[in-house]
Protein backbone atom coordinates (compact mmCIF):
# COMPACT_ATOMS: atom_id res chain seq x y z
CA UNK A 1 0.00 0.00 0.00
CA UNK A 2 1.30 3.42 -0.91
CA UNK A 3 2.58 5.46 1.98
CA UNK A 4 0.75 8.68 2.79
CA UNK A 5 4.09 10.18 3.79
CA UNK A 6 5.42 10.19 0.22
CA UNK A 7 5.35 13.69 -1.30
CA UNK A 8 4.71 14.25 -4.98
CA UNK A 9 7.56 16.24 -6.48
CA UNK A 10 6.94 18.32 -9.60
CA UNK A 11 8.86 20.80 -11.74
CA UNK A 12 7.11 23.56 -9.80
CA UNK A 13 7.79 22.42 -6.25
CA UNK A 14 11.24 20.86 -6.80
CA UNK A 15 13.11 24.00 -5.73
CA UNK A 16 11.04 24.54 -2.60
CA UNK A 17 10.47 20.97 -1.48
CA UNK A 18 13.79 19.42 -2.40
CA UNK A 19 16.55 21.99 -2.90
CA UNK A 20 15.51 24.44 -0.18
CA UNK A 21 14.60 21.74 2.35
CA UNK A 22 16.20 21.84 5.79
CA UNK A 23 16.03 18.05 5.96
CA UNK A 24 17.59 15.53 3.58
CA UNK A 25 15.19 14.58 0.79
CA UNK A 26 15.03 11.22 -0.95
CA UNK A 27 13.60 11.52 -4.46
CA UNK A 28 12.43 8.48 -6.40
CA UNK A 29 12.46 9.30 -10.12
CA UNK A 30 9.97 6.93 -11.70
CA UNK A 31 7.43 6.45 -14.50
CA UNK A 32 4.20 4.56 -14.85
CA UNK A 33 5.58 2.39 -17.68
CA UNK A 34 8.68 1.38 -15.74
CA UNK A 35 8.20 -2.06 -14.17
CA UNK A 36 11.25 -1.96 -11.87
CA UNK A 37 9.98 1.40 -10.55
CA UNK A 38 6.86 -0.42 -9.38
CA UNK A 39 9.08 -3.17 -8.02
CA UNK A 40 10.92 -0.84 -5.66
CA UNK A 41 7.85 1.28 -4.80
CA UNK A 42 7.08 -0.75 -1.62
CA UNK A 43 10.67 -0.18 -0.43
CA UNK A 44 10.37 3.57 -0.97
CA UNK A 45 7.04 3.52 0.91
CA UNK A 46 8.58 1.60 3.79
CA UNK A 47 11.49 4.05 4.04
CA UNK A 48 9.00 6.94 4.04
CA UNK A 49 7.03 5.32 6.87
CA UNK A 50 10.05 4.41 8.97
CA UNK A 51 12.41 7.35 8.60
CA UNK A 52 11.39 10.44 10.53
CA UNK A 53 14.62 12.23 9.59
CA UNK A 54 13.96 12.15 5.85
CA UNK A 55 11.49 13.66 3.44
CA UNK A 56 10.63 11.10 0.78
CA UNK A 57 9.23 12.18 -2.57
CA UNK A 58 8.41 10.72 -5.96
CA UNK A 59 8.96 12.50 -9.26
CA UNK A 60 7.27 11.24 -12.42
CA UNK A 61 9.90 11.71 -15.15
CA UNK A 62 7.26 11.45 -17.85
CA UNK A 63 5.28 14.38 -16.47
CA UNK A 64 8.36 16.36 -15.32
CA UNK A 65 11.21 15.58 -17.73
CA UNK A 66 13.08 18.84 -17.07
CA UNK A 67 14.27 17.82 -13.60
CA UNK A 68 15.45 14.40 -14.77
CA UNK A 69 17.29 16.11 -17.63
CA UNK A 70 18.96 18.59 -15.30
CA UNK A 71 20.55 15.70 -13.39
CA UNK A 72 21.41 13.74 -16.54
CA UNK A 73 19.17 10.85 -15.53
CA UNK A 74 19.01 8.18 -18.24
CA UNK A 75 18.02 5.17 -16.20
CA UNK A 76 15.15 4.63 -13.78
CA UNK A 77 14.27 3.83 -11.09
CA UNK A 78 16.76 6.52 -10.05
CA UNK A 79 16.73 7.30 -6.36
CA UNK A 80 18.64 10.39 -5.29
CA UNK A 81 19.44 11.77 -1.85
CA UNK A 82 19.50 15.56 -1.74
CA UNK A 83 21.16 17.45 1.10
CA UNK A 84 21.43 21.24 1.27
CA UNK A 85 20.32 21.53 -2.33
CA UNK A 86 22.83 19.05 -3.70
CA UNK A 87 22.45 15.54 -5.06
CA UNK A 88 24.83 13.73 -2.70
CA UNK A 89 23.99 10.04 -3.23
CA UNK A 90 22.20 8.07 -5.91
CA UNK A 91 21.20 4.60 -6.95
CA UNK A 92 20.00 3.32 -10.33
CA UNK A 93 17.90 0.23 -10.93
CA UNK A 94 15.83 -2.11 -8.78
CA UNK A 95 17.69 -3.74 -5.92
CA UNK A 96 17.00 -5.20 -2.47
CA UNK A 97 16.41 -2.71 0.32
CA UNK A 98 19.76 -3.25 2.06
CA UNK A 99 21.62 -2.58 -1.21
CA UNK A 100 19.52 0.50 -1.90
CA UNK A 101 20.12 1.85 1.59
CA UNK A 102 23.83 1.16 1.27
CA UNK A 103 24.02 3.01 -2.05
CA UNK A 104 22.21 5.98 -0.54
CA UNK A 105 24.23 5.97 2.69
CA UNK A 106 21.08 5.36 4.75
CA UNK A 107 22.53 2.36 6.55
CA UNK A 108 24.89 4.39 8.73
Amino acid at each position, binding site marked *: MASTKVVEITTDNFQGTVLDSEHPVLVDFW*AEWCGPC*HMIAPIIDAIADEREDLIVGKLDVDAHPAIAQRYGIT*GIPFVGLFRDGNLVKKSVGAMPRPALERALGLDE
Partner: protein
Amino acid sequence: MPPKTRKVIIIGSGPAGLTAAVYAARANLEPLMFEGYGWGGQLMLTTEVENYPGFPMGVMGPELMQAFRDQAERFGTEIVPADVTRVDLSSRPFGVWVDDEEYRAEAIVISTGASARWLGLESETSLRGHGVSSCATCDGFFFRDKPMVVVGGGDSAMEEALYLARIGSKVTIVHRRDAFRASKIMVDRALANDRVHVRWNGVVEEVVGDGRVEGVRVRDVVTGETETIPAAAMFVAIGHTPNTELFRGQLELDPDGYVVADGSRTSVEGVFVAGDVQDRLYKQAITAAGSGCIAAIDAERWLELGQALETDQARTASAATGN
Protein backbone atom coordinates in the same frame (compact mmCIF):
# COMPACT_ATOMS: atom_id res chain seq x y z
CA MET B 1 10.40 -17.62 21.29
CA PRO B 2 10.27 -19.78 18.16
CA PRO B 3 8.12 -18.33 15.36
CA LYS B 4 4.76 -19.84 14.47
CA THR B 5 5.20 -22.56 11.87
CA ARG B 6 3.43 -21.78 8.60
CA LYS B 7 2.08 -24.48 6.35
CA VAL B 8 3.64 -23.01 3.21
CA ILE B 9 6.20 -20.34 2.50
CA ILE B 10 6.56 -19.19 -1.09
CA ILE B 11 9.81 -17.52 -2.07
CA GLY B 12 9.52 -15.34 -5.17
CA SER B 13 6.61 -13.47 -6.73
CA GLY B 14 6.59 -13.90 -10.50
CA PRO B 15 3.85 -15.79 -12.35
CA ALA B 16 5.00 -19.08 -10.77
CA GLY B 17 5.02 -17.88 -7.17
CA LEU B 18 1.81 -15.88 -7.42
CA THR B 19 -0.05 -18.77 -9.06
CA ALA B 20 1.22 -21.09 -6.32
CA ALA B 21 -0.07 -18.49 -3.84
CA VAL B 22 -3.55 -18.39 -5.41
CA TYR B 23 -3.84 -22.18 -5.25
CA ALA B 24 -2.31 -22.53 -1.78
CA ALA B 25 -4.50 -19.74 -0.39
CA ARG B 26 -7.64 -21.26 -1.87
CA ALA B 27 -6.64 -24.57 -0.26
CA ASN B 28 -6.60 -22.77 3.13
CA LEU B 29 -2.85 -23.20 3.50
CA GLU B 30 -2.51 -19.50 4.48
CA PRO B 31 0.64 -19.03 2.42
CA LEU B 32 3.29 -16.53 3.38
CA MET B 33 5.06 -15.07 0.37
CA PHE B 34 8.39 -13.30 0.29
CA GLU B 35 8.08 -11.24 -2.83
CA GLY B 36 11.51 -9.71 -2.70
CA TYR B 37 12.58 -6.43 -4.24
CA GLY B 38 11.94 -7.81 -7.70
CA TRP B 39 8.24 -8.44 -7.22
CA GLY B 40 6.46 -9.55 -10.35
CA GLY B 41 9.59 -11.00 -11.88
CA GLN B 42 10.71 -10.56 -15.45
CA LEU B 43 7.29 -9.57 -16.77
CA MET B 44 7.75 -6.30 -14.91
CA LEU B 45 10.43 -5.43 -17.46
CA THR B 46 8.27 -6.06 -20.50
CA THR B 47 5.63 -4.08 -22.32
CA GLU B 48 3.01 -5.90 -24.29
CA VAL B 49 2.57 -9.63 -23.65
CA GLU B 50 0.89 -11.13 -26.70
CA ASN B 51 1.02 -14.82 -25.92
CA TYR B 52 -0.66 -15.07 -22.52
CA PRO B 53 -3.92 -16.91 -23.18
CA GLY B 54 -7.10 -15.07 -22.28
CA PHE B 55 -5.89 -11.69 -23.55
CA PRO B 56 -6.68 -11.65 -27.29
CA MET B 57 -5.52 -8.04 -27.64
CA GLY B 58 -2.43 -8.50 -25.48
CA VAL B 59 -1.79 -7.20 -21.99
CA MET B 60 0.97 -5.10 -20.42
CA GLY B 61 3.40 -7.24 -18.39
CA PRO B 62 3.27 -5.14 -15.19
CA GLU B 63 -0.53 -4.94 -15.44
CA LEU B 64 -0.77 -8.72 -15.75
CA MET B 65 1.44 -9.20 -12.70
CA GLN B 66 -0.57 -6.68 -10.67
CA ALA B 67 -3.67 -8.75 -11.47
CA PHE B 68 -1.87 -11.95 -10.38
CA ARG B 69 -0.85 -10.24 -7.15
CA ASP B 70 -4.35 -8.91 -6.44
CA GLN B 71 -5.76 -12.40 -6.98
CA ALA B 72 -3.24 -13.97 -4.59
CA GLU B 73 -4.02 -11.34 -1.94
CA ARG B 74 -7.76 -11.71 -2.41
CA PHE B 75 -7.61 -15.28 -1.13
CA GLY B 76 -5.50 -14.41 1.87
CA THR B 77 -1.87 -14.69 0.82
CA GLU B 78 0.28 -12.76 3.24
CA ILE B 79 2.91 -10.89 1.24
CA VAL B 80 6.19 -9.70 2.75
CA PRO B 81 8.05 -7.15 0.61
CA ALA B 82 11.49 -8.42 1.58
CA ASP B 83 14.23 -10.62 0.24
CA VAL B 84 14.98 -13.89 1.96
CA THR B 85 18.60 -13.76 3.11
CA ARG B 86 19.08 -17.37 4.33
CA VAL B 87 17.28 -20.70 4.38
CA ASP B 88 17.79 -23.93 6.30
CA LEU B 89 16.39 -26.92 4.44
CA SER B 90 18.22 -29.53 6.51
CA SER B 91 15.39 -30.19 8.96
CA ARG B 92 11.64 -29.64 9.22
CA PRO B 93 10.02 -27.27 9.84
CA PHE B 94 12.27 -25.47 7.35
CA GLY B 95 13.86 -22.19 8.38
CA VAL B 96 13.65 -18.98 6.36
CA TRP B 97 15.33 -15.75 7.42
CA VAL B 98 15.08 -12.13 6.41
CA ASP B 99 18.21 -10.82 8.13
CA ASP B 100 17.59 -11.74 11.79
CA GLU B 101 13.86 -12.33 11.42
CA GLU B 102 13.12 -16.06 11.48
CA TYR B 103 10.20 -17.84 9.82
CA ARG B 104 9.31 -21.54 9.83
CA ALA B 105 7.27 -23.63 7.39
CA GLU B 106 6.33 -27.25 6.85
CA ALA B 107 6.62 -26.85 3.09
CA ILE B 108 8.39 -24.38 0.82
CA VAL B 109 7.72 -23.41 -2.78
CA ILE B 110 10.77 -21.94 -4.49
CA SER B 111 9.92 -19.61 -7.36
CA THR B 112 12.82 -17.18 -7.36
CA GLY B 113 13.02 -16.99 -11.14
CA ALA B 114 15.98 -15.81 -13.13
CA SER B 115 17.81 -12.51 -13.52
CA ALA B 116 19.10 -10.78 -16.61
CA ARG B 117 22.65 -11.69 -17.49
CA TRP B 118 25.26 -9.02 -18.22
CA LEU B 119 28.20 -9.17 -20.60
CA GLY B 120 30.67 -8.78 -17.76
CA LEU B 121 32.67 -5.86 -19.16
CA GLU B 122 34.11 -3.22 -16.86
CA SER B 123 32.84 -0.43 -19.11
CA GLU B 124 29.40 -2.02 -19.01
CA THR B 125 29.31 -1.87 -15.21
CA SER B 126 30.62 1.68 -14.96
CA LEU B 127 28.11 3.00 -17.52
CA ARG B 128 25.09 1.17 -16.13
CA GLY B 129 22.40 3.76 -15.55
CA HIS B 130 24.22 6.10 -17.93
CA GLY B 131 23.10 4.45 -21.13
CA VAL B 132 23.77 0.79 -20.32
CA SER B 133 20.56 -0.94 -19.34
CA SER B 134 18.75 -4.27 -19.38
CA CYS B 135 15.30 -2.70 -19.53
CA ALA B 136 14.29 -1.03 -22.78
CA THR B 137 10.82 -0.20 -21.51
CA CYS B 138 12.33 1.63 -18.53
CA ASP B 139 15.11 3.58 -20.14
CA GLY B 140 14.40 3.78 -23.88
CA PHE B 141 12.40 6.93 -23.11
CA PHE B 142 15.61 8.85 -22.39
CA PHE B 143 17.09 8.26 -25.85
CA ARG B 144 14.46 9.70 -28.15
CA ASP B 145 15.74 10.11 -31.74
CA LYS B 146 19.14 8.69 -30.77
CA PRO B 147 20.91 5.61 -32.13
CA MET B 148 20.91 2.59 -29.84
CA VAL B 149 22.40 -0.89 -29.68
CA VAL B 150 20.71 -4.06 -28.48
CA VAL B 151 22.93 -7.05 -27.66
CA GLY B 152 21.46 -10.54 -28.04
CA GLY B 153 19.69 -12.86 -30.43
CA GLY B 154 16.67 -14.25 -28.62
CA ASP B 155 13.05 -13.16 -28.36
CA SER B 156 13.75 -10.58 -25.69
CA ALA B 157 16.45 -8.96 -27.88
CA MET B 158 13.98 -8.74 -30.80
CA GLU B 159 11.29 -7.38 -28.52
CA GLU B 160 13.60 -4.72 -27.07
CA ALA B 161 14.84 -3.74 -30.56
CA LEU B 162 11.30 -3.36 -31.88
CA TYR B 163 10.27 -1.34 -28.87
CA LEU B 164 13.32 0.94 -29.14
CA ALA B 165 12.80 1.38 -32.89
CA ARG B 166 9.65 3.33 -32.06
CA ILE B 167 11.67 5.76 -29.96
CA GLY B 168 15.19 5.99 -31.37
CA SER B 169 16.61 6.99 -34.74
CA LYS B 170 18.23 3.62 -35.41
CA VAL B 171 18.62 0.37 -33.52
CA THR B 172 21.48 -2.01 -34.20
CA ILE B 173 21.17 -5.56 -32.91
CA VAL B 174 24.62 -6.97 -32.20
CA HIS B 175 24.61 -10.75 -32.26
CA ARG B 176 27.59 -13.05 -31.95
CA ARG B 177 26.32 -15.58 -34.49
CA ASP B 178 25.00 -15.37 -38.06
CA ALA B 179 21.45 -16.42 -37.15
CA PHE B 180 19.00 -15.55 -34.38
CA ARG B 181 17.57 -18.11 -31.98
CA ALA B 182 14.45 -15.97 -31.50
CA SER B 183 11.08 -17.22 -32.73
CA LYS B 184 10.36 -16.72 -36.42
CA ILE B 185 7.55 -14.22 -35.89
CA MET B 186 9.82 -11.97 -33.82
CA VAL B 187 12.78 -12.28 -36.23
CA ASP B 188 10.56 -11.45 -39.20
CA ARG B 189 9.18 -8.41 -37.44
CA ALA B 190 12.62 -7.16 -36.47
CA LEU B 191 14.14 -7.67 -39.91
CA ALA B 192 11.17 -5.99 -41.60
CA ASN B 193 11.60 -2.83 -39.52
CA ASP B 194 13.48 -0.08 -41.41
CA ARG B 195 15.03 1.30 -38.24
CA VAL B 196 16.37 -2.06 -37.07
CA HIS B 197 19.77 -3.13 -38.38
CA VAL B 198 21.75 -6.24 -37.53
CA ARG B 199 25.47 -6.58 -36.89
CA TRP B 200 25.98 -10.33 -37.34
CA ASN B 201 28.97 -12.18 -35.87
CA GLY B 202 29.68 -9.29 -33.58
CA VAL B 203 31.01 -9.49 -30.03
CA VAL B 204 30.92 -6.41 -27.82
CA GLU B 205 34.44 -5.56 -26.67
CA GLU B 206 33.78 -2.31 -24.91
CA VAL B 207 31.15 0.29 -24.23
CA VAL B 208 32.73 3.55 -25.30
CA GLY B 209 32.01 6.80 -23.51
CA ASP B 210 33.01 9.06 -20.67
CA GLY B 211 30.19 9.41 -18.17
CA ARG B 212 27.65 8.40 -20.77
CA VAL B 213 27.46 5.91 -23.61
CA GLU B 214 28.78 7.24 -26.93
CA GLY B 215 29.30 4.03 -28.83
CA VAL B 216 29.77 0.29 -28.70
CA ARG B 217 33.01 -1.29 -29.94
CA VAL B 218 32.31 -4.55 -31.70
CA ARG B 219 34.74 -7.19 -32.94
CA ASP B 220 33.77 -9.37 -35.88
CA VAL B 221 34.36 -12.97 -34.86
CA VAL B 222 34.91 -14.00 -38.50
CA THR B 223 37.24 -11.26 -39.78
CA GLY B 224 38.64 -10.12 -36.44
CA GLU B 225 38.09 -6.49 -37.40
CA THR B 226 36.70 -4.01 -34.92
CA GLU B 227 34.38 -1.06 -35.40
CA THR B 228 32.65 1.35 -33.07
CA ILE B 229 28.92 1.69 -33.60
CA PRO B 230 27.78 5.16 -32.51
CA ALA B 231 25.09 4.75 -29.88
CA ALA B 232 23.65 6.70 -26.96
CA ALA B 233 22.54 3.55 -25.21
CA MET B 234 23.24 -0.17 -25.08
CA PHE B 235 20.55 -2.60 -23.99
CA VAL B 236 21.72 -6.06 -22.96
CA ALA B 237 19.37 -8.99 -23.65
CA ILE B 238 21.58 -12.08 -23.62
CA GLY B 239 19.55 -14.38 -21.43
CA HIS B 240 19.13 -15.10 -17.77
CA THR B 241 20.70 -16.92 -14.84
CA PRO B 242 18.56 -18.76 -12.29
CA ASN B 243 18.38 -17.13 -8.85
CA THR B 244 19.57 -20.04 -6.73
CA GLU B 245 22.47 -18.63 -4.69
CA LEU B 246 20.25 -18.88 -1.60
CA PHE B 247 19.94 -22.66 -1.98
CA ARG B 248 23.45 -23.62 -3.03
CA GLY B 249 24.70 -26.59 -1.02
CA GLN B 250 21.23 -27.39 0.34
CA LEU B 251 19.37 -28.37 -2.81
CA GLU B 252 20.49 -30.26 -5.89
CA LEU B 253 21.31 -27.78 -8.66
CA ASP B 254 22.47 -28.56 -12.19
CA PRO B 255 25.82 -27.22 -13.48
CA ASP B 256 24.16 -23.99 -14.68
CA GLY B 257 22.51 -23.39 -11.32
CA TYR B 258 18.95 -24.48 -12.15
CA VAL B 259 17.11 -26.41 -9.43
CA VAL B 260 16.93 -30.08 -10.38
CA ALA B 261 13.28 -31.09 -10.27
CA ASP B 262 11.10 -34.13 -10.78
CA GLY B 263 7.78 -32.49 -11.56
CA SER B 264 7.72 -29.88 -8.81
CA ARG B 265 9.68 -32.02 -6.36
CA THR B 266 13.25 -31.11 -5.47
CA SER B 267 15.99 -33.18 -3.86
CA VAL B 268 14.58 -32.20 -0.44
CA GLU B 269 11.22 -33.63 0.56
CA GLY B 270 8.74 -30.85 1.32
CA VAL B 271 10.56 -28.33 -0.88
CA PHE B 272 8.82 -27.70 -4.19
CA VAL B 273 9.91 -25.61 -7.13
CA ALA B 274 8.19 -23.75 -9.95
CA GLY B 275 8.94 -21.36 -12.80
CA ASP B 276 12.13 -20.23 -14.50
CA VAL B 277 14.36 -21.20 -11.59
CA GLN B 278 13.93 -24.84 -12.71
CA ASP B 279 13.06 -24.34 -16.37
CA ARG B 280 15.78 -24.18 -18.97
CA LEU B 281 13.51 -25.03 -21.88
CA TYR B 282 10.27 -23.07 -22.02
CA LYS B 283 10.61 -19.97 -19.82
CA GLN B 284 7.18 -18.60 -20.62
CA ALA B 285 4.79 -16.76 -18.33
CA ILE B 286 2.16 -19.40 -18.94
CA THR B 287 4.50 -22.33 -18.23
CA ALA B 288 5.71 -20.60 -15.08
CA ALA B 289 2.12 -20.06 -13.95
CA GLY B 290 1.26 -23.68 -14.77
CA SER B 291 4.21 -25.00 -12.82
CA GLY B 292 3.27 -22.75 -9.88
CA CYS B 293 -0.14 -24.40 -9.82
CA ILE B 294 1.48 -27.84 -9.92
CA ALA B 295 3.84 -26.97 -7.05
CA ALA B 296 0.98 -25.69 -4.87
CA ILE B 297 -1.15 -28.79 -5.50
CA ASP B 298 1.83 -31.07 -4.86
CA ALA B 299 2.63 -29.21 -1.65
CA GLU B 300 -1.00 -29.39 -0.54
CA ARG B 301 -1.20 -33.14 -1.17
CA TRP B 302 2.14 -33.72 0.48
CA LEU B 303 1.02 -31.80 3.58
CA GLU B 304 -2.31 -33.61 3.69
CA LEU B 305 -0.65 -36.95 3.30
CA GLY B 306 1.89 -36.25 6.03
CA GLN B 307 -0.73 -35.03 8.49
CA ALA B 308 -3.10 -37.87 7.65
CA LEU B 309 -0.38 -40.43 8.25
CA GLU B 310 0.39 -38.93 11.61
CA THR B 311 -3.17 -38.60 12.83
CA ASP B 312 -5.57 -40.85 11.01
CA GLN B 313 -4.43 -43.39 8.47
CA ALA B 314 -7.99 -43.79 7.19
CA ARG B 315 -8.26 -40.20 6.01
CA THR B 316 -5.35 -40.62 3.62
CA ALA B 317 -7.29 -42.30 0.87
CA SER B 318 -10.02 -39.68 0.60
CA ALA B 319 -7.56 -36.80 0.94
CA ALA B 320 -5.42 -38.07 -1.91
CA THR B 321 -8.34 -38.38 -4.28
CA GLY B 322 -9.93 -34.99 -3.44
CA ASN B 323 -8.74 -31.58 -4.56
